[in-house]
């Protein structure tokens, strides 16, 4: 399978060969009246990498994406894609970026080939090159068999693939995909994951938002976690995991239900708080801890000394979901503290 590396229509401006950075935001902010949708966002992306953009609903993901693709004007700061400023170089941005919104944007009574033909013509790709290009992008996205189907009759997963084919038509440097795996069944999600990895392998840089974090964890080189318009974590996935794993989750599996309250008391005493959670159905005591390996060894010894029958004592492996929850929990705690301070100040 081949994919053209030069634009079939007007050539898109390529980034300088001296740098591999294709996207960068500096102190990017957006306000809607008094509401701060985005607050001093600093992220970047290198060529051929995939950036997972994570955040709860209303966190500011779509606002960031709309600024990057030139649909929204930032209040301050700047966003640059391959050297083109998202605020000032709208025309260049359109050629450099392939954007797939969370809505497909279907047209009635149009076949897939006609749908792609229209967007190809809109991007100024000449007719002969356009036909070849449509064939290529449909092959790349494994959607060649759909070319004569009507777009409104396609399933959601098929529409997502046609949507990606559309973003690839003008051979953009950066693909920005808003929730590409949303609503897909497991098989279609696997296909989507493979497709995104294939696109990264041919040199495309991708920014992907998703709520399905395990999927993102498998494909992302970089992760940005955003809540309430603020960047909470940004960097390579492994680095974020390391940060999160400073506070580990420990699980103690018991052999006997009667031992559960006693085990929870021992754990709480060990920690000096009542943070342990007990699961009756799993016969499990769970807690989060900053303690070292030696200290945890002492805890296990205490449990055994006090005749608690422990069948397993293990650390739970952290994943992207934990990282996300950890960051959002911190954010929630901070919000509660701020609210408390505000209440005190009001008093």
């Amino acid at each position, binding site marked *: 399978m081949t994919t053209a590396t030069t634009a079939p229509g007007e050539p898109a401006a390529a980034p300088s060969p001296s740098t591999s950075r294709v996207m960068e935001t500096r102190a990017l902010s957006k306000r809607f009246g008094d509401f701060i949708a985005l607050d001093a966002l600093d992220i970047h992306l290198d060529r051929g990498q995939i950036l997972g953009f994570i955040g709860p609903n209303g966190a500011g993901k779509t606002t960031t994406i*709309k600024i990057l693709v030139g649909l929204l004007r930032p209040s301050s700061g700047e966003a640059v894609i391959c050297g083109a400023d998202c*605020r000032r170089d709208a025309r260049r941005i359109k050629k450099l970026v392939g954007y797939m919104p969370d809505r497909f944007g279907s047209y009635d009574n149009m076949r897939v080939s006609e749908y792609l033909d229209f967007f190809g*013509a809109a991007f100024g790709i000449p007719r002969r090159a356009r036909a070849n290009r449509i064939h290529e992008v449909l092959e790349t996205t494994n959607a060649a068999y759909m070319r*004569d189907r009507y777009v409104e009759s396609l399933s959601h997963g098929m529409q997502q693939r046609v949507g990606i084919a559309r973003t690839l038509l003008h051979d953009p440097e950066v693909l920005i995909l808003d929730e590409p795996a949303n609503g897909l069944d497991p098989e279609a999600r696997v296909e989507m994951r493979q497709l995104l990895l294939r696109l990264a392998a041919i040199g495309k840089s991708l920014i992907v938002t998703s709520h399905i974090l395990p999927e993102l964890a498998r494909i992302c080189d970089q992760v940005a976690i955003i809540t309430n318009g603020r960047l909470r974590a940004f960097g390579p996935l492994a680095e974020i995991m390391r940060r999160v794993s400073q506070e580990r989750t420990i699980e103690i599996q018991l052999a006997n239900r009667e031992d559960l309250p006693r085990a929870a008391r021992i754990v709480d005493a060990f920690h000096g708080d009542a943070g342990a959670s007990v699961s009756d159905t799993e016969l499990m005591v769970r807690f989060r801890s900053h303690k070292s390996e030696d200290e945890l060894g002492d805890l296990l010894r205490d449990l055994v000394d006090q005749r608690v029958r422990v069948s397993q004592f293990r650390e739970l492996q952290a994943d992207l979901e934990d990282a996300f929850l950890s960051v959002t929990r911190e954010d929630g705690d901070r919000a509660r503290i701020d609210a408390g301070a505000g209440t005190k100040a009001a008093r």
Partner: protein
Amino acid sequence: MGVFGNPIIAREFTNLLRSRRAIHLFVAVAAASSALVLMRWPSDAIVDLSGNQSRQVFRVFGYGMLATVLLLTPVFPATSIVREKNQGTLALLFNSPLGPVSIFVGKLIGALGFLAVLLMMSVPAAAALTAMGGVSPLREIGGLYALLALAALQNTAISLWISSRATTSDGALRWSFAAVLAVSVVAIGPHQFLQGRGTESLLSTGAEYLRCVSPIPAAMELMAHSDVASQGFESRVRAAPGYPLAALAITLAAAIATTTRLNYRIFDRARSQGVMTHERSRGEQWARRLFFLVDPQRRTRGIAPLVNPVLVKEFRCRRFGRFHWLMRLMAASAVVSLVLTLASTTATMERGVETIGGIMVALQVALIVLLTPTLAATLISGEVESGGWTLLQMTPMSAARILSGKLMSVLWTLLLIIVSTLPGYLVIVWISPESWLKVRVVLICLAWTAAFALLASATVSAFCRRAATSTTVAYVLLLSVYAGTMLIWLGRDAPFGHAMVENALRINTMAAALSVMGTPGFVTYRLIPDAWWITGGACVGFAVVLVLRARTLTRPQ
């Protein structure tokens, strides 16, 4: 479950009442009906024993209320079922103990309740009219309200049936307006041409019965007007008693058809597998070549260079915009124009150029007013609603290119349809060569009408986020200009003076064309060139607003 325990009635009714549009409508109806009565309210001590003044007001009031009901009835029920279907709430209703009859009755009464409140807004004016004397409160005022209620019932039932069959809200609106027009206006057409042919003519008798499905002849009878475009012949079938029967029969038929649709099969929609002609057997390929002038299953070529891609896209994604449909449309128009030519040749001899020319103008304007919003009122709002506008924004195409592609796609279709209806004028010019100048002026008026309808509908579509809303607003706007002003014309000389009618008609290029044609009732009004200037100015205004709005919509927010 009884009618009063039906939860859909309360939901539909309160939802309609909650909207700001509802308040505007109520205030507008109350203000317009009161103003009408106040205009002719006796201001001196002389009592009008003949009741002439109140009868004049009663006629305009009656036609005005009838026009309001015909115009507003489809708006709410037409989107009622299809919107629930597309939002997924219809499936929830099917999953509840409510049966199809309860759902239908709930929606019917909900919509009718809203119309009842609307009609009640005019009751104070009607009461004042009765107080003026000369109008019977029970027989005439009561009869009028009964007629309006029947018209509302009939059209609501038809609109609900269309809503149950439609796939999109704006499509349902278009078909509902077309159905209301067909039932209320087109049904009168055959009687206009065939009346006075004698009892032996089956067609003439059929036409007399057919006109009973429309509330207009019944309203005319009620207001002691002569029959529709009467040529002095007396109809054997009275419309006033015939209409209630016809309306109830249509309502019942629509109710049965709708309730049989209200089950899970409503969600079934065949998905085309997109089989192309070259993938079929050799025999099928030959058959398709033989029977299809332009095969719709043939793989299309790419968009040609120098052609605006938006123009091609608009034609391709329109259900009847494909080339094979355009060919069929042209063929149908050719047949219609031949029939029209034949009819006008024979009828012109009998009734004169003025009458036949007037009918042709009215039919063409009706076609333009009915068709243009279906094409132009969703140009931008449809894209915004489907999410396609964001994709267009992401292409390097300028606002001007997008807009010109969209406008041209409608303009070509309108031109095609208007041109196919022109042969009738050729016959008029052949019969009466001195009419050539008149016909030229009429054609200019038609061109302005098409331009106004196109630009007004497109501008409305640029300000709405939903295709159904923009379609409704465009219809209301165009019908206000082209039908609303005709209501004032109906009250010419009384209660409205000559100057007022002339001023009102100046915004109506159809009236201008009719005055040029010398159609009876329009001869005394001098509307040209003022009508051209006013319509032209409005077109320029709409065009400027449209371009500015399109530029705003394509720029970053």
